[in-house]
């Protein structure tokens, strides 16, 4: 039973990171019906930028100060959001009215470009994150080890998701985002600047993704240039599980997938973990392709 709760705690941590990244996929898909294959790599870019800020402002062996850590998150979020907007303007917007697959290939190209750009700028090797970026104290509750880093990651992720949920559901601009996802033409007729909405989605999604990527680096204490696609795919699967285009769905899907992966890795097989994840995905696609909470996308004709 202790093992079960331990896996539960780990799964919840990873799941909330998946959920953060999944939000970027689901928002872009909701409006553009495009799988933004580069999103996972944007998250990794966030991890590398954050790491660079931390290591360049912290002396060797010393623990990074709070201000440095906050600055790392701010810089990562800003740079990745800018990269997201640039991506939209250069690689996706010109293809808005082209065949869907042209945009898909452009997205795949953007993913390769980013992944290998990260490799060329930083390193083809795995980089290690220093200790003590987030406070790391172990609490033992009934035999289950809870780390304060885990607790912080889950808490911050929940706060961010709550903020996004409120922003999308309770503000004027959030209403515009939801309207554009349902029917772009009708939204345009109502005076909504759909292009601005799309740019805003390419700010919000990558910003959350950058935080997710940095969390991955901090939690596993390492980052490698090509980890974007496996975390990206997991996050995308999470978005599908919850129902693509559905923001609460992405949150739920992320948490469920994190728990599922953790329990499957712990109880069934760790060498087959990814295959089990994909088997689950295919099963869900066959049984309930619209996800648990239902997809929220208009069929693009």
């Amino acid at each position, binding site marked *: 039973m202790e093992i079960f709760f331990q896996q539960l705690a780990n799964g919840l941590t990873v799941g909330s990171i998946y959920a953060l990244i999944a939000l970027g996929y689901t928002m872009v898909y909701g409006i553009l019906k495009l799988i933004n294959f580069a999103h996972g790599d944007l998250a990794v870019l966030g991890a590398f930028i954050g790491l660079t800020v931390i290591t360049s402002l912290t002396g060797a062996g010393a623990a990074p100060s709070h201000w440095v850590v906050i600055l790392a998150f701010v810089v990562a979020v800003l740079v990745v959001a800018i990269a997201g907007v640039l991506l939209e303007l250069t*690689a996706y917007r010109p*293809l808005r009215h*082209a065949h869907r697959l042209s945009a898909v290939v*452009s997205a795949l*190209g953007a993913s390769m470009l980013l992944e290998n750009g990260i*490799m060329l700028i930083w390193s083809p090797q795995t980089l290690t994150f220093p200790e003590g970026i987030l406070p790391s104290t172990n609490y033992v509750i009934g035999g289950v080890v809870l780390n304060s880093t885990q607790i912080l990651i889950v808490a911050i992720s929940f706060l961010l998701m709550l903020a996004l949920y409120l922003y999308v559901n309770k503000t004027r601009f959030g209403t515009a985002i939801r309207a554009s996802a349902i029917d772009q033409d009708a939204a345009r007729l109502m005076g909504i600047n759909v292009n601005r909405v799309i740019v805003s989605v390419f700010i919000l999604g990558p910003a959350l993704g950058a935080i997710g990527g940095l969390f991955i680096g901090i939690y596993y204490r390492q980052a490698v240039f090509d980890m974007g696609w496996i975390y990206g795919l997991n996050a995308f*699967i999470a978005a599908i599980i919850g129902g693509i285009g559905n923001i609460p769905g992405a949150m739920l899907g992320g948490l469920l997938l994190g728990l599922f992966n953790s329990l499957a890795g712990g109880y069934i097989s760790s*060498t087959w973990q990814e295959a089990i994840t*994909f088997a689950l*995905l295919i099963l869900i696609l066959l049984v309930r392709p619209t996800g648990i909470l239902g997809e929220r996308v208009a069929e693009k004709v």
Partner: protein
Amino acid sequence: MKKLTSTWAGLLLWVLGLLLVPLFADNNWIFIMSYFAIYAVVSLSQDVVLGRAGMYDMGHAVYFGIGAYTTAILNTQYGVPILWTLPIAVVVSALFGALLSAPIVKLRGDYLLVATIGFNEIFHMALVNDVGGITGGPDGIYGIEAPSLFGHQIMSQGGIFVLNWILLGIVLLLMNNLENSRLGRVFRYLKEDELAATTLGVNARYYKILAFALGAGIAGAAGTLFTSLLQSVSPGAFVFTESVTLFAIVIVGGQASIPGVLLGAVLMFVVPQVFRDLAEYRYFVFGLAMIVIMVLRPQGILPRRRRLE
């Protein structure tokens, strides 16, 4: 008339390649052209599913890999000569194509795409984890024989090149026939308007599975030749990135366009072989090129000509 001349031009190019490459090129170039022939066949088979039947298959490397491993296992474990494994590889790959696609062809575009990515990942993990103790794990399978014809082993690069080039010729002929056949038209209707095709009495599910089986079978044949060219197989050649490259070849070259797909295969597989010194920039440049080409030519570089019918 114009159609006819382009077919003749293609035939002429094929014959010239067959004659000139083994005679005048050095071993390195002969190897590159053999390699091209194999990947051209795989790309054309991807095009059957993606460009002709319009299904977003992003796991095509699976069928290529099944063909390659079928040959490798039959040859090393049971001593079956390479060329005898070719029809078996075609059948096994086609069967897998039909079996794997049967439950998922009903899925809408992007969901089908994600499901096929899933297949590719599961397949790759199965190879790495050495399922059934027959795939050789992460190292793959070594020591595969050279193909032999009438008891005579084809050892020279030139001989292997001719063999691969002949398969490419056969597949090109097949594609040309598919283009003008009833089956090709059914695929096209399904791609353009599935609802209309169904109301005209087309059994969509049957033909979609058939498209997968056909594409998989052709990819399986290429897998056999791939194994005999390298005389080894390993899981790395059948990863998701390879499927992405095949997918991109069809879209970048031009869907359902034979010259387009061949050009795409040249760009993605021949060019990197020539610039091997710059290998670390390969995918960076690919990525950039994919974006730029799509933005400038969303229909592909050599799109299919719209025939006046």
